[in-house]
């Protein structure tokens, strides 16, 4: 009931032309869509690991995620659809990847975490899975607004030796082809994703690093303010589109 009301609110709030938005899933071949729709697709290994890790004691405190959050099916539903969010302690925005790493450090006593650590990725996949099918719903906290605006600036700023902005490809030329590759609209509905190109599961951060390297620009440092800002903008640009799991991309 509440979810339906939220959904209705979001549909009303969608910008004009929103119905023309396409996700990477929409643009995949039927064969790849079938792979994503298969609950035992390659990304499932991380989901299974993440589910086990959720209840496993970790760190010097020997606490598990479940000790604080109970069943993820309840406590984590909708969380991935809302993040990035504000972190009070750092007084800065944090993405879900960063939040899981912070939780392991602060509450489990596991020390500073590598954002790309396999266990963190597995937990990220598991937590994200609890939001499957839910619409991306940007966190309305006004303290996030400056970072979101910074993200939009980054999105429209030309970068690198090839001197291209995100917007020039993903707004102005989406649907076109860069050699054989279809240029997607760039909506972050399917992360972390199992990418055939990578032969592994990876994050939005890794995907953006690929784009920046492609235009020969300096990538954002892992978890940097600029990356989170861009993630915030991408999420608001994709508001209303549904969270996919277990995402597969070419």
């Amino acid at each position: 009931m509440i979810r339906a009301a939220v959904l209705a609110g979001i549909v009303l709030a969608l910008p004009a032309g929103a119905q023309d938005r396409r996700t990477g899933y929409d643009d995949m071949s039927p064969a790849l869509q079938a792979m994503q729709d298969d609950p035992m697709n390659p990304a499932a290994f991380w989901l299974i690991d993440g589910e086990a890790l959720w209840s496993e004691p970790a760190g010097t405190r020997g606490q598990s995620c479940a000790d604080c959050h109970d069943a993820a099916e309840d406590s984590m539903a909708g969380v991935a659809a809302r993040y990035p969010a504000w972190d009070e302690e750092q007084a800065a925005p944090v993405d879900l990847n960063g939040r899981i790493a912070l939780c392991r450090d602060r509450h489990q006593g596991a020390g500073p975490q590598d954002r790309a650590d396999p266990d963190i990725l597995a937990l990220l996949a598991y937590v994200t899975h609890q939001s499957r099918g839910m619409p991306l719903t940007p966190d309305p906290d006004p303290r996030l607004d400056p970072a979101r605006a910074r993200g939009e600036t980054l999105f429209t700023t030309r970068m690198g030796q090839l001197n291209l902005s995100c917007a020039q490809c993903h707004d102005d030329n989406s649907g076109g082809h860069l050699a054989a590759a279809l240029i997607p609209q760039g909506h972050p509905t399917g992360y972390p994703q199992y990418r055939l190109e990578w032969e592994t599961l990876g994050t939005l951060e890794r995907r953006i690093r690929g784009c920046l390297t492609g235009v020969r620009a300096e990538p954002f440092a892992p978890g940097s303010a600029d990356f989170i800002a861009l993630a915030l903008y991408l999420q608001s640009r994709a508001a209303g589109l549904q969270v996919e799991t277990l995402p597969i991309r070419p």
Partner: protein
Amino acid sequence: MRGRGMRRRCAKPLAAEKRRRGKVGLNPTLRATLAVLALSGTAAGADGLATPLTATPGDPARGAQIVTDPQHGLCTLCHAGPFPQVAFTGTLGPDLTGVGARRTLADLRQQIVDSRRANPDTIMPPYHSTEGLNRVGERWQGTTLMTAQEVEDVVAYLATLTGDTP
């Protein structure tokens, strides 16, 4: 278990390219040409770059190699053209079929060196200019996509594309 599954390799057109890059600033001839343009207040490259960038005339055969190697010239990532040997060509730029008949040498040279002169909003990268670039990756700083001689080779090749069939 992780990472097993699909063994298929997909094309990584931009990320995977590794090519020889000239560690060049602006070539002296080009610098002189641009200085003349700046001094004379010539409107945004309207007349193109009439003076070759190098003393060695462009080699169309070398130019053809650069244009049709997606890892080197990057041209076919965006442009189709009379390149049957290239498996996949992009759709972002105009088809280069007949471009040698449509454009002058000066035009072609200007377009490749820095297409922003003709159109500030262009998506075509500047192949022989580092002017106004932002956040260039460390390994590419101070380099250009093509050396002056490569520009001349590509111009010489494009000038041969006068036929009207791909």
